């Protein structure tokens, strides 16, 4: 890879109190690609993901060592504002979590709180654009002012994606975005990820290996040691990881012999 990565982890260690959750991860996520993070439960996939946009800051006793380089700067430097980091690196969660407000407000809120100064119609355009990008517009255009919680689970998750897109991030982190959805809704989310990767870098944590194989360009496989600390085993193009893994542990996992 000659191109500069979208975000790069350097010797990342994450601790919750005295427990080390992730050990010494060094990993570069390529730009405008979907990178899947896979691995058994408790291997620190979500922890790594959440440390990329400083969501771990919200957990009282979480502590981070190492660097997360985004646009040439360590986002954990004291002069970096986590609020700005999270605007630039958005996140979609495992369980759809729309705000208990209207569909329109769900998308417009992030834009507004980030200091949007423009007319109502400009805001309308941003909302429409985001909903179109999330492949939700046609389903909700006639009920923009209805409560978002009335949508189906799959629609809610796409709304969350639209909400994340609306603030124009560079990277979208997805933490098992389809695990609470039925197979059809899951497929729609996967299609959406392929569409979005034209404009965004996507990092997705998934439990579902078929999903990783279907949607991702690159795959990072994590595992745990005896002390339940997670670490990176192998990273590479998805095709290679799934057909010709270098590490026997990766092979054991993807062939279903463990995990």
């Amino acid at each position, binding site marked *: 890879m000659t191109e500069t990565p979208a975000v790069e982890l350097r010797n990342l260690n994450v601790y919750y109190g005295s427990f080390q959750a992730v050990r010494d991860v060094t990993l570069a996520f390529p730009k405008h690609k979907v990178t899947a993070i896979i691995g058994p439960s408790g291997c620190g996939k979500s922890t790594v993901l959440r440390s990329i*946009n400083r*969501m771990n800051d*919200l957990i*009282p*006793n979480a502590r981070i060592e190492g660097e997360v380089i985004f646009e040439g700067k360590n986002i954990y430097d004291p002069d970096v504002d986590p*609020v*700005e980091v*999270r*605007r*630039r690196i*958005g*996140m979609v*969660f495992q*369980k759809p*979590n*729309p*705000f*208990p407000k209207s569909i329109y407000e769900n998308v417009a*809120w*992030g834009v507004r*709180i*980030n200091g949007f100064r423009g007319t109502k119609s400009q805001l309308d355009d941003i909302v429409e654009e985001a909903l179109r990008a999330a492949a939700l517009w046609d389903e909700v255009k006639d009920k923009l002012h*209805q*409560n978002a*919680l*009335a949508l189906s689970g799959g629609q809610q998750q796409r709304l*969350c994606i639209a*909400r*994340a897109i609306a*603030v124009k991030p560079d990277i979208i982190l997805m933490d098992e975005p389809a695990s609470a959805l039925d197979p059809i809704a899951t497929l729609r989310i996967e299609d959406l990820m392929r569409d979005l990767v034209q404009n965004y870098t996507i990092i997705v944590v998934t439990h579902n290996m078929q999903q990783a194989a279907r949607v991702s360009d690159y795959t990072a496989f994590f595992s745990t040691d005896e002390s339940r600390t997670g670490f990176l085993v192998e990273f590479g193009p998805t095709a290679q990881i799934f057909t010709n893994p270098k590490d026997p542990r990766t092979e054991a996992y993807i062939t279903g012999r463990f995990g």
Partner: protein
Amino acid sequence: MSVRPRFDPNRAARHRRARIGMVVFQLATLVGIVVLMALLYNIINNAFGLAAIEYRIYPATLGLDLETLPQTPRERLLEILETHLSPGLRRSLERTRPLTQRSNEELAALVLERVLQPKVLDTWPLVPSLLHTQDIVAEVHARFPQAEVRWVRWLNTRFLTRPQSSAPLRAGVRTAILGSLWLVVITAATALPLGVAAAIYLEEYARKDRWYNRLIQVNINNLAGVPSIIYGILGLAIFVRALEPLTSGAVFGAVAEGVTANGRTVLSGGLTLGLLVLPIVIINAQEALRAVPNSLREAAYALGATKWQVVWHHVLPEALPGIMTGTILALSRALGETAPLVVVGASTFITFDPVHPFSKFTALPIQIYQWTARPQPVFRNLAAAASLTLLLLLFLSNGIAVYIRHRARQRRLV
């Protein structure tokens, strides 16, 4: 190799135990209901019933009807007052304000008070009044040949709209109701903003792994259990004594004559009750904030929101119904508090309404307490009527709390 487990289901015994459990729970519920019914029965029983009333001059002899006394023609009232008042009394009344300038209600009140002079000799609770009407009438005729037996609803509109009086038939609870409302308003105005702010700090900002925050939390939990009389003493020391210039309204200058009473004002009472319910409001608000799912906070943070934006735009609105119900229940408790008000110096007998925060005041529980302490049996009935009033106010405020919760739930399902 696996050992096949041997089961001794003994289902009969398990079912029996389950049945015993159910019966115990039902009994516990039943006891609660019975106690509540007994309480209501006792209050209602005393709030209505027969009374033996004696008049100096019986209304019938003057062709008056007690129920419609104020609608009696004005000339007739004036004429009665003319003929039945002693000249000395009439002169002194005229000096205060000429009779002809007084309203019909005032004249009717004068007729009742000065001419008819009803006097309650004895009263009977509702149930005996209903079951043994004949016996009671006979008994009254034997004991008080002059007296008239009448049905009295002690809780009536006149009772609700008249100020306190030493004559039981004219006594009312308007002053006390207004005093209680003033107290609740002042209590809410202090406890709600302070309590919610403290709860937001403790839930959203304070790091729970710091010892000082844990100390604060433990203290608040304990303060919620401090006996209310202690708060009364605190209020006496702080609001009535130390802050007297403030709570008496002296520093604010112009204050109507006769209404102020040094630091023993409705403001002091309200602030004391505010302190009393503050820990409860904080704990309730904390519960409500804790019930807001973390996923909502994360969703907002992930969009680049600041802490303030997360709390103000999402967490607080989501928690508000819970905070409101909790607060209203806390205020209901304040509405029924007696002990701290006694200490802070609620008046036991005032006949004028509280008109501003620096007024002397009384409250419904104080009024009830004062009436139950009177030796004459008739005040028992007034106390019962006032209790019923207080209960109705509490039902009303709890009803509002239920309604708010219901509304919030509906809104979420739209």
